């Protein structure tokens, strides 16, 4: 049995209360580059109180298939990012995953990949899913490379699905099947 289901090599997944989510989200929202890499919603500066309110409301409306996490470093237990599995309890055993490292000085050091791989382990070995999907944006090349390295397969593009910086970009769809993940993590 795997007793460290939510722990990776660099990070662990922890629960975040809505106010903690709100506080971090408000901080990270002031980095518009982070938010443009993370989300297709218009970037917006947020304050901790209202952001906390948003996450409290989200928690109350949350459907049973939502598994939100905060990402914590193993080294100094710092909260550096957020992620989650969404729509994860369905008859098709198919879910969506998201990951973002808000602390930009830690980008490119493998924290996001590590946390994402822990979420995949949780998805395939605890939720017993058959596949996991994600979307990212054509301009987020670092994310696409990281997802390819973890074994995600390109499954198509929504042509011109977003407009940013005066230009149209594709929304990139990637997916990984349980067998693919298991053979990459033997």
């Amino acid at each position: 049995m795997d007793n460290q289901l939510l722990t990776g090599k660099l990070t662990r997944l922890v629960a975040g209360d809505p106010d903690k989510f709100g506080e971090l989200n408000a901080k990270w929202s002031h980095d518009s580059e982070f938010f443009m890499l993370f989300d297709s919603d218009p970037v917006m500066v947020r304050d901790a109180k209202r952001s906390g309110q948003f996450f409290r409301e989200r928690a109350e409306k949350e459907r049973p298939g939502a598994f939100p996490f905060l990402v914590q470093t193993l080294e100094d237990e710092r909260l550096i990012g957020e992620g989650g599995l969404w729509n994860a309890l369905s008859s098709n055993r198919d879910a969506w995953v998201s990951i973002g490292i808000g602390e930009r000085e830690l980008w490119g050091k493998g924290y996001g990949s590590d946390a994402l791989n822990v979420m995949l382990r949780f998805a395939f070995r605890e939720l017993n899913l058959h596949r996991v999907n994600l979307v990212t944006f054509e301009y987020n090349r670092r994310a696409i490379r990281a997802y390819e390295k973890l074994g995600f397969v390109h499954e198509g593009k929504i042509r011109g699905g977003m407009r940013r910086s005066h230009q149209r970009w594709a929304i990139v769809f990637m997916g990984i099947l349980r067998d693919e993940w298991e053979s990459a993590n033997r």
Partner: protein
Amino acid sequence: MILQLFEGEKIRFAAFDADKDAEALSKWTHDPEYMRLLSPDPARPLAPFHIKKRFEEMEKEAGRDFYYFVIRAREDDRALGFTHLRWIEWNHGNAHFDMGIGSASDRGKGYGSEALQMLFRYAFEELNLYRLTGHTMEYNTGAQKFLLKHGFQLEVRRREALQREGRYWDGLTYGILADEWANANR
């Protein structure tokens, strides 16, 4: 300038009328073939009570990132089906659509084609969207033909995203750009 968006030759777009429509919509949900062609969610019969409740929920979102129409026959005003535009991302000009013609006896008569052309006009010339996205399943060959015939292109193939009848099926996503529609209708 075209001012008439809701009147077609054989059909019209109308608001949901709980007294008139709940009974018909409930009846359609009792046809598992219809439900399976429509959605990857488990087929489930709904009572008029549930239909009314769903429309009340939908009405809360309507006009923000969600628009919906009941499709009616001009000849006798009966409800033929429905169409939705949802997850509208105003900043990117993308929306997702659903459409269904409820009774088997009303299918193959061109109602869906006319409704889709009216939906294009509404999406591109009233909401000013850049593109429209549609989803279907590998086993729904009728919908695939319908989408291709009306100018959609296959953009994403989510491998084995569905399970039905004891096997896996791909989830398919199609897209059409406003320009492509305009060029085809010049």
